[in-house]
């Protein structure tokens, strides 16, 4: 590794961090120059998030060099890091749901009229200005509760750029954003760079890295691998550095015999969420549900599975009516649902991995009504191995795992119920290429074994590569049902952005 240039804003070298028996970082490093946008890439569990959290003051390193603006630093809290001029946009939004949008932006540094009086009018005004800069329309007075993930992400971004920071770290800020919002974010990021600030950008989307960043640092297995100028490298080279081997990137679905209808949804309607939704899914078929974020895809999936209720319509599995708002009955009938937000809905993050995997099996595992940790471990082990969950012990809490491994645990948990219908919502969101291909291969295998799969995804390439049929949702309605051979980025996007008939909206 070359000598860090004297003007580097952030220098991390040989940074080590262990959690219990797990070494999250063995030799982490990155050198970020002022006035540049630096991409940080690596597979799941490569240690990116841990590195970021050390810089942010969430974790303290066990050893190694940590220099910020030319001084050795050692932050003991997020407040320290913030005061030093570091802002972080975390992967998962961290908002206060009971407070207004504006208060979320300015908490702890609200504009004041006097020492004891917050100037709310000024706060709202500043918020409007920030949103204008990002080109979005959000009411600063409304509560943060109930905002879509995309809007929450925008608030995080607005919060970070409003701080006068020397270093801005963005951990997958674009995961939930639409194309236009991503463009605006990039414009703002470039403006910040041109002001001489340093930015670190973590993403799994290579197009974004090549469009936005100047430099890229690759990490693998908790260690620094290489730093290069983006202009002098290629996607293939970065991928090879990340995984240490060449990977087939998007695993296309292997053809499978299509069987009988497994799921039939008819005229599903829920005020304010979706309208007149009808579709069928057959055994061995992967049906992709595409659409913009907030179009109502997840809401439809949640209603079908029975998490949420609906106003009218019906759901049939193998010809049998599935009762509304009864997930237990759905599971018994053979449905499995891997939700979008794995941290909130898919995992008991404080519980052990084994317990998470075994949680939906409880009844089958219990002996005389009691559940032994050993039977949980036994049931979990088979699935964890099959999915190659990287962790040292199944009895560790799920919260210590990386995003990709968490997703695998959620999948394992549901596959252990041996469902006939699997609904996955954004199965590869925030997951690196290596794991992504594994998830794709797994879904393809499952369909090959005769499982019916419904896959919701915002990534067009994933939908086009995997799905036998693409349903496009726009503003709560299914606007297209496209077969594999007719599905192109153009046909799908046209249906996803199709404007609504005005008389129906009134």
């Amino acid at each position: 590794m070359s000598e860090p240039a004297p003007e580097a804003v952030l220098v991390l070298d040989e940074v080590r961090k262990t959690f219990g028996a797990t070494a999250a970082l063995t030799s982490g490093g990155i050198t970020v120059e002022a006035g540049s946008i630096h991409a940080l890439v690596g597979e799941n569990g490569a240690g990116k998030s841990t590195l970021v959290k050390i810089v942010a003051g969430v974790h303290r390193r066990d050893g190694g060099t940590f220099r910020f603006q030319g001084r050795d630093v050692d932050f003991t809290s997020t407040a320290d890091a913030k005061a030093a001029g570091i802002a972080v946009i975390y992967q998962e939004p961290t908002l206060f749901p009971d407070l207004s949008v504006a208060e979320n932006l300015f908490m702890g540094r609200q504009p004041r009229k006097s020492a004891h009086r917050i100037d709310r009018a000024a706060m709202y005004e500043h918020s409007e200005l920030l949103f204008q800069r990002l080109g979005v329309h959000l009411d600063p007075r409304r509560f943060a509760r109930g905002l879509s993930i995309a809007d929450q992400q925008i608030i995080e971004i607005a919060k970070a750029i409003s701080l006068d920071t020397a270093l801005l770290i963005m951990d997958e800020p674009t995961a939930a954003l639409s194309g236009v919002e991503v463009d605006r974010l990039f414009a703002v990021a470039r403006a910040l760079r041109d002001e001489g600030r340093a930015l670190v950008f973590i993403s799994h989307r290579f197009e974004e890295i090549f469009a936005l960043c100047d430099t890229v640092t690759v990490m693998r297995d908790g260690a620094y691998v290489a730093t290069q100028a983006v202009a002098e490298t290629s996607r293939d080279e970065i991928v090879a550095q990340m995984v240490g081997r060449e990977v087939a990137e998007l695993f296309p679905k292997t053809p499978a015999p299509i069987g009988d209808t497994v799921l039939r949804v008819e005229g599903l309607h829920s005020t304010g969420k979706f309208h007149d939704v009808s579709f069928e899914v057959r055994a061995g078929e992967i049906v992709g549900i595409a659409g913009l974020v907030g179009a109502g895809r997840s809401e439809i999936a949640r209603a079908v599975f029975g998490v949420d209720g609906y106003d009218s319509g019906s759901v049939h599995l193998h010809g049998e009516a599935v009762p509304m708002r009864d997930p237990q009955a759905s599971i018994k009938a053979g449905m499995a649902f891997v939700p979008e937000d794995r941290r909130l809905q898919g995992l008991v993050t404080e519980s052990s991995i084994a317990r998470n995997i075994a949680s939906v099996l409880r009844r089958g595992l219990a002996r005389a009504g009691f559940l032994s940790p050993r039977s949980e471990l036994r049931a979990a082990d088979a699935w964890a191995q099959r999915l190659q969950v990287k962790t040292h012990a199944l009895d560790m809490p799920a919260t210590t795992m990386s995003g990709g491994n968490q997703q695998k645990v959620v999948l394992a948990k549901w596959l252990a119920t041996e469902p006939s219908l699997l609904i996955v919502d954004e199965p590869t969101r925030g997951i690196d290429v290596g794991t992504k291909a594994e998830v794709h291969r797994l879904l393809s295998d499952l369909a090959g074994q005769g499982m019916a799969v419904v896959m919701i995804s915002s990534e067009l390439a994933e939908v086009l590569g995997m799905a036998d049929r693409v349903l496009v949702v726009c503003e709560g309605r299914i606007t297209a049902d496209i077969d594999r051979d007719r599905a192109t980025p153009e046909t799908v996007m046209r249906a996803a952005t199709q404007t609504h008939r005005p008389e129906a909206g009134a």
Partner: protein
Amino acid sequence: MKHTAATLLRSREAAVALVLLAAVVLTALKSESFVFSADGWRNLLVTPSMLVILAVGQTAVIITRNVDLSVGSVLGLTAYMTGRIFIEAPGTPIVAVVAAAIGLGAVLGLVNGVVVAVAKVPALVVTLGTLYIYRGVFLTWAGSDRINASDLPDDFLALGNAQIASVPVLSIAALAVLIAVGYHLYYSRGGREMYAIGSDPDAARLYGLPVTRRVIGAFVLSGALAGLAGVVYAVRYGTVSSGAGLGIELEAVGAAVIGGVAIFGGSGTVWGAAIGAALLVTINRALPVVGISDFWQRAVVGGLILAAIVLDRVLALRRERRLGIERDTRSLA
């Protein structure tokens, strides 16, 4: 018209105030002197003052997603100390005694806060423990002894009847506390941080808010106000026996919940809690006037708390639905 009524009812403070007003009016119809007599008017204003003070402190704690169950014992202990000071050191200025009571309350609150915020033990457990410990200290100190009105100086007892412009001094004190804390929670950065902490403690820590300091602050405030309430108790009743303040912590929590303070923190105002406290006290006094038995009085209080929680749930569901429709119209636009 319909719109304004709906907006008004959506504000919990207004809704509870309406219920309070209705209770007062209905009781006054039955017995005019409940409101329209010198005594009735004074009692209407002065009886809620002690619970209002406690409910304000409790609200500050609940907003941070904690609870303070020790306030009843703190109240008893400080009320007894107030009397003791007048016995041991007659002639001590009243202001000094009040300050001592508030100070003792603050120290007891500090103990709660430190154990909760630093040792990270759930507040429910910690303050349940100190509820018994503080009460135990009180019992040991007092023994079978009790403070009688004759032990207290006349000008101290006179505070119970003193009025300024036909408003009792004790009510003014409670109102002053209410305004000060209400202002702090709404206008100061520290106050807003307390809401943020209760709304999502993990996010607050990640954000870098001074969580430990704010939580300790809330407990100190609650303790100090319980100390002040102890003085009010001594003034109002003149006698302080070992049962002083027994069970009043639950009334304080109940008042906050009725007033719209979310039990899991993050939302609600001291105004609501204060109106809730006034409602609890007033209903307790009104029910015997309209001839309802003891048993039902308790049940009415319980019913109010349940009604408040059901109302919260219904409103939350409706809000969720409205946000759904709003999201739809936004995407249409």
